């Protein structure tokens, strides 16, 4: 009996999830290891004692805000053509399409906000509100929030704070209402949108020099958690079908080998910020890049159309 068999039940009790957070109520030997052995989660072998101590285990993915920040710091530029048009919002009638595209829109909203696109940010906040409302997520975005957003249209700090608060509202609402499959699909939609945006920032003829490639390679770390989340919620038919799609991306990432050196801690710094020093060795072949870009674009297109 593997611990994975307990996952759906445990998760049904504990999931804390939203655009960016997933629950991992794992009460035993939950060891996850990818094909390159660059990411392993080892939990205690004997859970009988640890169950009493380790009450809750969370797995957290990058939030849409963090994704947008990483894109920007890696040299991304704003390209409105990459966003899922807000006019598409009326197309999404099923639970799956609404949840996945809520993740897509929240990532687009963060991307637009961080690149100082106030009107686009308002449009995407409205689109996200409409999907959240249709999914029954109460007060994720209320009218007061929209008024505050419009009143501070040129203040990026305020806009980012509103976006952050909106995620937290969604996250906590889903936690309180035990709607893990919705949260899992929303999270996955946002994660794929982040990968889509990164892939479309890379010049195929200049892969070796692109800073964005590192972001794409690093996505392999969080892909492990995406798959774990989907597995935990795979009792839901919509999640199971989504998992099949994400598995295609996982298959491509399995061709990429990543090795990391041990971490050295440098804490004696004047600015008080500890630096974790380590190196990563990885390479993204052009052929694999094209395959990844094509597959992610195909999956993302199927989501938004």
């Amino acid at each position, binding site marked *: 009996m593997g611990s994975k068999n307990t996952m759906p039940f445990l998760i049904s009790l504990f999931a804390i999830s939203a655009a960016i957070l997933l629950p991992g109520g794992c009460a035993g030997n939950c060891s996850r290891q990818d094909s390159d052995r660059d*990411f392993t989660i080892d939990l205690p072998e004997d859970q009988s004692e640890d169950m009493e101590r380790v009450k809750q285990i969370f797995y957290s993915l*990058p939030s849409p805000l963090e994704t947008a920040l990483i894109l920007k710091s890696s040299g991304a530029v704003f390209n409105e053509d990459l966003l899922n048009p807000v006019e598409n919002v009326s197309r999404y009638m099923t639970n799956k399409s609404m949840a996945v595209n809520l993740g897509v829109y929240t990532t687009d909203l963060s991307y637009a906000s961080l690149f100082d696109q106030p009107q686009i940010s308002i449009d995407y906040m409205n689109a996200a509100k409409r999907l959240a409302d249709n999914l029954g997520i109460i007060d994720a975005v209320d009218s007061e929030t929209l008024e505050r957003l419009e009143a501070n249209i040129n203040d990026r700090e305020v806009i980012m704070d509103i976006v952050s608060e909106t995620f937290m509202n969604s996250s906590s609402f889903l936690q309180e209402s035990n709607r893990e499959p919705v949260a899992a699909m929303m999270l996955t939609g946002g994660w794929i949108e982040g990968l889509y945006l990164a892939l479309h920032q890379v010049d195929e003829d200049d892969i070796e020099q692109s800073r964005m490639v*590192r972001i794409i390679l690093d996505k392999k770390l969080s892909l492990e958690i995406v798959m774990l989340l989907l597995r935990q919620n795979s009792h839901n038919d919509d999640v199971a079908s989504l998992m099949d799609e994400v598995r295609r991306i996982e298959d491509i990432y399995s061709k990429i080998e990543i090795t990391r050196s041990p971490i050295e801690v440098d804490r004696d710094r004047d600015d008080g910020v500890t630096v974790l020093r380590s190196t990563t060795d990885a390479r993204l072949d052009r052929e694999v890049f094209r395959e990844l870009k094509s597959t992610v674009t195909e999956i993302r297109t199927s989501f938004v159309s």
Partner: protein
Amino acid sequence: MIRRFPVFLFFAAILLTNLSPEAQGQCKAFARRICKGDLERYMHDGNYHAAILTEGEEAELYKTFYADQEYRIAICGDDGLPDIEFRVMDIQRNILYDNSENEFGGTWDFRLESSQQLMIWVRAPSVNPGREPASGCVAILFGLSTR
């Protein structure tokens, strides 16, 4: 091997006693009211991670942290709980930071040269075993530097 029945009882008990919507709602308010302020100049990433812990209990959180980003981890617990212990470890569980060596401070600022999967371990310590253990909300929030 997982012993399924005890697992069921254990988690059912938690469901019935500790994870009520009211308790979680209080935890959300606590995280927003108290913990978010500890992020100071760092922008809250929007994630919400909170649990109701009783003295002696632990929680763990796994997250990918990205190269060249500067983060603040903020951990805070209800006033009724003792100082919350927390450690940050790599995937081999090597300790990178331990707040018990830093007067149980509730925040830690760090930057990474390469992206890493890290684990944050928190514990509500049991400081007075002779009395009824206290319970309360413990929240873990992440801030991002936008400088």
